[in-house]
């Protein structure tokens, strides 16, 4: 299993990388951690003529806090997220999510930017990004734009990222104090993608739901935002009936592809179960 021949480029700076993208256009692919792209190239599902390795660009790495926002370099690895004291303190949902991704070796290489840009509905960061209200910095030859996570994911391997652009940074507003959070993921074994998973952030006011966000992994052509489920919870008491109704509404938007992980009915049921579990965990962590 060896990829088709290609030319390899290892730019040292972002402008150099953007220049290479401009020169080679559709023939080029960006290499981040490589643990989705290289397997696809080995299977000849992807056959780029030029591979542009972002691994040597120092400015794409690192996690810092700036004016209430976490700024995460797109080439920051999953293990770096897990070991970040800053994230553990300010946004533990990202740590919980990263810990459920693949296996230790893959997490040394796999990056948050790669996971988001790939557009695979099985990737975990998209759901986390949506419930955290994150945005992405995309840079290309004609400048920079910042786009919200909600709306970025268009379908299977399709996102707003243009072939001429590089995702450089992920911006995550630090959740308000007292915000509850959870990522509930069902997977058959270590290293597998989710059978179904749900990400939740939740703010309570007494026993009433003040604000809630719910997003689902791997039960549609892209990550799904469960807007109707959110609306049904907002302003209501957080009780068994409300949770069951939210799960029912979340299941109603699922359209999973049947595969060895299960048929559509099973996956949809599991999306409902993960929604319930994530909501309950988030509630247990929320303080009014």
């Amino acid at each position: 299993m060896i990829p088709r021949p290609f030319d390899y480029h290892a730019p040292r700076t972002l402008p150099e990388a953007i220049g290479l993208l401009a020169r080679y256009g559709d023939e080029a692919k960006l290499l981040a951690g490589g643990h989705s792209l290289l397997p696809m190239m080995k299977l000849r599902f992807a056959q780029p003529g030029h591979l542009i390795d972002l691994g040597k660009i120092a400015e794409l790495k690192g996690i810092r806090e700036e004016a209430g926002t976490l700024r995460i370099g797109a080439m920051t690895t999953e293990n770096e997220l897990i070991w970040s004291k800053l994230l553990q303190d300010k946004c533990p949902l990202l740590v919980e999510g990263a810990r459920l991704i693949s296996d230790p070796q893959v997490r040394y290489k796999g990056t948050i930017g790669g996971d988001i840009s790939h557009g695979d509905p099985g990737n975990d960061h998209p759901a986390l990004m949506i419930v955290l209200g994150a945005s992405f910095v995309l840079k290309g030859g004609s400048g920079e734009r910042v786009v919200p996570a909600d709306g970025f994911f268009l379908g299977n391997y399709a996102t707003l990222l243009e072939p001429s652009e590089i995702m450089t940074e992920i911006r995550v507003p630090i959740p308000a104090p007292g915000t509850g959070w959870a990522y509930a993921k069902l997977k058959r074994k270590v290293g597998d993608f989710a059978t179904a998973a749900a990400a939740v952030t939740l703010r309570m006011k007494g026993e009433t739901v003040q604000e809630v966000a719910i997003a689902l992994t791997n039960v549609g052509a892209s990550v799904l935002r469960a807007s109707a489920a959110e609306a049904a919870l907002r302003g209501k008491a957080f009780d068994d009936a409300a949770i069951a109704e939210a799960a029912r509404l979340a299941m109603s938007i699922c359209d999973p592809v049947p595969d060895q992980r299960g048929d559509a009915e099973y996956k949809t049921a599991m999306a409902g179960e993960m929604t319930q579990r994530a909501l309950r965990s988030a509630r247990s962590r929320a303080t009014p």
Partner: protein
Amino acid sequence: MANKQAVSFKLNGKPVDVLVEPRELLIHSLREKLLHTGPHIGCETSHCGACTVDIDGMSVKSCTVLTVQCEGAEMLTIEGFEQAGELSAVQEGFTKEHGLQCGYCTPGMITRAYRLLKENPNPTEEEIRYWMSGNLCRCTGYQNIVKAVQYAAKKMATATA
């Protein structure tokens, strides 16, 4: 051959150069060009961990890394663990605790366990199981692998005490 490029890195402390096509995977350069056959080809799909090597302080599955990505790297394979005829603490743990049966997964297991103990010298059993979960073993049922890592952790703690 067209389109080959020279890649230089440090392998178990010694500088090496290989001439590769960009598409060549690290595991093939190691085994076929540099004759380091300790890292094994198990699944070739980054699941099993038999090909694990240590690159710049990270455990990496060498079936899913291109050799050209390793320019300037510091690399450690199972061949680099024994020092002057003495087994490393992790190797000793795997022999003393019977952490292997067929031995196919062992180079990857030991290489991964080495990095785990560098990062966390005193791991709980749960931490060992979680941070070793990228390496599959079809013989042992993992019980003795966990014991081998615990043995190495103790031995290293005593050595530095």
